[in-house]
């Protein structure tokens, strides 16, 4: 296979190197049963990389290892001159605030208002008392409103998050991630809970809003068509390993059979 032969030059945007280098990443939730097996991956500092593969193949674990919501068992994750896999405490939080994340189930704090959810993206930057008293710097509040406008929810700022529809919630999730001024955006199945039309809108939103800011995106996605349509690069995973890595045009049915296994479903 042409696995892990795909290499692109590392790029820098605005003086900051936004590329990500993963080396021999392993994760075992139970000893002896690795979910990720020595995964190595280079992601250049721009564009959208889609990770496809069957359920339970470690896509989610891979993305969650990057911002350390999951602690890897071994391996290295280099980003902005640091090995994320080794960070602890304050250093980890400072690294995390530069990595935005969009979740499958949106993961908004349901009882907070939309704007409060967006401002959660600033928690890594503002002192605790400001969060407590909701005294966010006015520049942050201004930017939160601009981001809500940018995702088309300008009129919903003071509504509670639990009153929104799925597509609207995911828009808030995207605004929250962008609010972090991230150097990398992770999206863990951002469209799996949405209808087909909304899914396309959400992918467009992620691609455009991250693209215009030069933020590289890594997105886990079930939907191969959406991956082909929006990603600049597709990584196929199967059983904890990368089995395809290349441009969307290079992804053929034969590859899909390798990634998902079986046959007959690709008619």
């Amino acid at each position, binding site marked *: 296979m042409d696995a892990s032969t795909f290499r692109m030059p590392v790029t820098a945007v605005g003086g900051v190197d936004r590329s990500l280098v993963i080396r021999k990443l392993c994760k075992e939730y139970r000893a002896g049963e690795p979910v990720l097996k020595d995964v190595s991956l280079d992601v250049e500092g721009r564009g959208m990389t889609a990770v496809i593969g069957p359920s339970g193949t470690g896509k989610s674990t891979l993305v969650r290892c990057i911002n350390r919501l999951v602690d890897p068992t071994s391996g290295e994750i280099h980003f902005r001159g640091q090995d994320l896999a080794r960070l602890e405490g304050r250093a980890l939080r400072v690294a995390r605030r530069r990595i935005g994340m969009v*979740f499958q189930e949106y993961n908004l*704090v*349901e009882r907070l208002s939309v704007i409060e959810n967006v401002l959660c993206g600033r*928690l890594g930057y503002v002192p*605790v008392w400001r*969060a*407590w008293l909701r005294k966010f710097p006015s520049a942050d509040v201004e930017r939160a409103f601009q981001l809500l406008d940018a995702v088309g929810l300008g009129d919903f700022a003071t509504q509670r998050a639990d009153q929104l529809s799925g597509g609207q919630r995911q828009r808030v*999730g995207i605004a*929250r991630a962008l609010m972090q001024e991230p150097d990398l955006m992770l999206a863990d199945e951002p469209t799996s809970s949405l209808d087909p039309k909304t899914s396309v809108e959400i992918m467009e939103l992620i691609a455009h809003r991250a693209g215009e800011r030069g933020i590289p995106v890594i997105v886990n996605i079930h939907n191969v068509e959406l991956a082909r349509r929006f990603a600049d690069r597709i990584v196929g995973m199967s059983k904890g390993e990368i089995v395809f890595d290349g441009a969307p045009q290079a992804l053929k049915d034969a590859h899909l059979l390798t990634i998902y296994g079986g046959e007959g479903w690709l008619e």
Partner: protein
Amino acid sequence: MNAAKTIVPAKRVAFPPNWPVRIALLALALYVIHASTILDITWARFVVGLDQGARFISRMWPPDLASDKLELLTSGMVASLQIAIIATVVGVLLALPLGLAAARNLAPLPLAWAARGLIALFRTFHPVIVAILFVKAVGFGALAGMLALIVASLGFLSKLVAEAVEEMSMQQVEAVRATGSPFLSLVIMGVLPQVMPRFIGFSAYQLDSNLRNSALVGLVGGGGIGAALFTAFQRFDYDFVLTIVLAIIAVVMVGEIVSGWMRRLFQ
């Protein structure tokens, strides 16, 4: 021998007798009979008691509304209200951190177990017994009663906070953690919004219960209306006892209404 070979189908029993339960119930019934004979609980004794009760009630009526008694009643009642309100406020303020420390999905395990141990200790004894301990420790008066009620509030509220935190949605917490938020900001923006409605409900209930218990701790020397009630009993002022009892009933009912308002106000 054909008879030996005939297979008798086993009789199917829909509801097999549960012998352990039968034996336990029988033992319980025997014990109740045994215990009541030891304690001299007989019909004759009950009739004697009825007679005594009738005399007691006749001496209670009419309630004593003399102005000096009413003054005693008012000052005692005000003290009790103050004890209840201060104990609730202090208990609520302390219960939040203690409850968070006891939540196993948030606090490191050793801390959680230590906090749980403390909560269990607070909950071991009835407020009256705690009040007796505090009366011995800090002397007669409102301080002892207040401390006893603080301990009771703390035990109840922090346990419920811990349980509410353990049942909250970790998805929302995870999303806030991914922003690089410091721990306290995570609690303020990700945890408290989820547990606050229940916490306010519990606090209102605790105010209610402290109003009732403040009379109780007074009986054992904890100050307030309970002290007045105890003195009235000792001096056989049964008509004044009735006044106090009616006043307590009125206050508890008003307290129930107020705590209902509080719940609606903060939801």
